[in-house]
């Protein structure tokens, strides 16, 4: 299973953090600090895997954002690259040519999409279409209620 999923920029600003194991705030901050330092220090054309403590860290850079996850021993690193790629594709489909700003201003949507794709550190749905359909329906549900209440969404 994945232990965590982090999205951060080249300047070290965190854009999304998903934790699949219970950690204290202090521990989380430490993990973020350490992993960010390790990943940001890597030269451009290196291998996408590294070892940190007892975790395999898999990261991939998409434009200005690093997508970074921590795996356990049994997990398949090459497949995890595909998982990260699939998440980017889902974001891209939802936002239409996604860029970092989209994720900054709509971070809650990024989380919702993630929650339709992964759960408990494992892949939940392998079909791109199914995830998009769920998101659309849930959004409709949200808007319907908002329209009903005659109030703007936040």
């Amino acid at each position: 299973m994945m232990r965590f999923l982090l999205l951060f920029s080249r300047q070290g600003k965190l854009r999304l953090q998903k934790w699949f194991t219970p950690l204290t705030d202090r521990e989380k901050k430490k993990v973020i600090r350490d992993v960010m330092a390790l990943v940001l220090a890597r030269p451009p054309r290196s291998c996408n895997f590294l070892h940190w403590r007892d975790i395999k860290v898999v990261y991939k850079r998409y434009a200005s954002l690093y997508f970074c996850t921590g795996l356990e021993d049994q997990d398949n690193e090459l497949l995890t690259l595909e998982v990260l790629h699939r998440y980017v594709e889902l974001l891209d489909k939802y936002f239409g040519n996604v860029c970092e700003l989209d994720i900054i201003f709509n971070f809650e949507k990024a989380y919702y999409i993630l929650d339709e794709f992964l759960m408990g550190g494992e892949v939940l749905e392998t079909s791109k279409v199914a995830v998009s359909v769920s998101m659309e329906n849930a959004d409709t549900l949200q808007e319907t209620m908002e329209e009903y209440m005659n109030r703007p969404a936040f």
Partner: protein
Amino acid sequence: MPAPIRLRELIRTIRTARTQAEEREMIQKECAAIRSSFREEDNTYRCRNVAKLLYMHMLGYPAHFGQLECLKLIASQKFTDKRIGYLGAMLLLDERQDVHLLMTNCIKNDLNHSTQYVQGLALCTLGCMGSSEMCRDLAGEVEKLLKTSNSYLRKKAALCAVHVIRKVPELMEMFLPATKNLLSEKNHGVLHTSVVLLTEMCERSPDMLAHFRKLVPQLVRILKNLIMSGYSPEHDVSGISDPFLQVRILRLLRILGKSDDDSSEAMNDILAQVATNTETSKNVGNAILYETVLTIMDIKSESGLRVLAINILGRFLLNNDKNIRYVALTSLLKTVQTDHNAVQRHRSTIVDCLKDLDVSIKRRAMELSFALVNGNNIRGMMKELLYFLDSCDPEFKADCASGVFLAAEKYAPSKRWHIDTIMRVLTTAGSYVRDDSVPNLIQLITNSVEMHAYTVQRLYKALLDDISQQPLVQVASWCIGEYGDLLVSGQCEEEEPIQVTEDEVLDVLEGLLVSNLSAAVTRGYSLTAIMKLSTRFSGVNRIKKVVSIYGSSIDVELQQRAVEYNALFKKYDHMRPALLERMPIMEKSASNGPTEIVQTNGETEPSVVDSKHPPPVSQPANQANDLLDLLGGNDVVPVIQTTVPTKPASAGGELLDLLGDLSLSGVPTPAPSVATSQPSFLLDGLSSQPLFNDIAAAAIPPMTAYNKNGLKIDFTFERANPNPNVAVITIHASNSTEADMTDFVFQAAVPKTFQLQLLSPSSNVVPALNQGTVTQVIRVLNPQKQQLRMRIKLTYTLKGSPVQDLAEVNNFPPQSWQ
């Protein structure tokens, strides 16, 4: 109260902040506004405020005052509220928070909600961060949802069940009935999560594993369909149908087939098919191949299949993609133990990977190279590894150096090669080697008798070049101290002997003493080396001068050594040659890790040193306790008899530790295991020197300890030079009666401030009519210099009847304990 600003407004505003301080100010202002809004219990804008709080939390600011608000949002009826509320719960309310459990009821209600997306939210939250208590409470609901026909809910329930099982393994049983027809689903989401659930159950319980083995044919069928089926747009990734599912099935098959012949048999075909038919041009295909290889290696596959797997890994090694090379090296490392020969075939490719630019690949390649070294390829491999050691980053040097030492130790084709290799490591990576490599190397050099001249010459030359690498300098000074005579006499056979004078050698050693680059330990080495040369070189005066100078050194260790060496020159000059003579061959009784060095010479037998437990003790143990009882005092310590020449019991061990501080033999003190064993040599060596015994014995007069019923026991004394706290007493038992005294046992006890060690007696029979004596050696440690007292117990059999006696010995001559 005006409406709180929108989320996007806030984000825009915060991003305009130019400094950290400015950002902090804006955030504090907004937090204050949010806090007052929360206080007013404003339902309308609660979700907006919590959303803003979550944004600020992501920037790293505290947001705990929003925890209860998240709970209120979750309890709300609006979907928007619930969505943000659950997100907030997942970010702020992990199981370490007190309010975490308050969610349980809300989640329970939402699990039964009419809208599947609300149910989905609840399942997601529970499945990501539910605590054990929550899982216990809600497992029933999850189990119910696992049986629903709604595939959206079913897949979420499956992963939620996985989380429940991880948190509360005992609940695994309750999910068993629901798994019955999970695999007959068509929906890929459900299939995938079901396979994950089954994997989790099989990993945790051997019973479950046995139970689910019957699913192997079904799994094989599903996998086959995925491979053979045509293009499916929904699940296609670069031409491969649902790789995520394929990989998970392969992983489950791996677990099911492990150590089970029938299951492994059933999967052979499909594994071969996947291995040969998968498209390898993209990462996806390689991910599946990778998983397939791992599965083949783990189950009981036929040999043809295994060879196929290793060849796939070999192809991976040649792939341009770094990730694939890395993954190949990692897998080969896992399989090198079981399929050593097959991996050997790829050795040259692996060694080439040492030159890769990527750090991760280099590390894996290094580990794998060390695993592949054997007697046949040692020379070639070592060349490559030494080249790697020269050019690699500092982070690798320590591990590489250790690896080289280990490999050299195991497979060295010749002693000269071994010494050359170690020298190469010390000169290139000298500051990164482990601490125990210095004594190891010294021991190795001592044992290669024919290489002494060559070794000392090479080390001397290395010293001339560079004195900054401490381990090298330490070994070199030790060697020069030992074999300096070979160095100046130019006796080297292996290579062109160099011309060097005694003065030049002393210049070098004295240079080490004064250099800023030398560590304290190194200085100790060189001083001892200089001292040793006093018996090997002709010009002693220079050495005497150096030694006396350092008698007032600020460094306490150096000062002590110098003072004692000075004493050797002045008072014990006759003993100097004996003390400083060549070290004998040391035999290693264990390799790897702390070295146990046992001295062997003609007289003593080698024995395995076990410093933790006292050597096996027969009946004297309980008799010693009897002694204690009889003597009834708290001030006596029973003595455990030991047999020569095993390592002394703990009492003796401490005895020798004191001696360990002084390393006249030049062996370094930092290595503790060496220190404990060296002194035993030192003491043994000293006590076997007749010269020393005679002189010392004359200093303390002998005495009669016991004389009754025809049994007379005399004590003769020696002092264990150089530690004046240890007295070595030899008892001489003689029998003036007409019959032999058989089963003679001598025991002694001393007051608590002393420590005593009894060695084996020369015999158990004291012959009649003073025809011979039984001797036994006692060593007494007297650190507080108190008056020596002893209680002795004697048992023997005379003319068939057992005799036992106790006595106190108080008439020790003052010189024995002062």
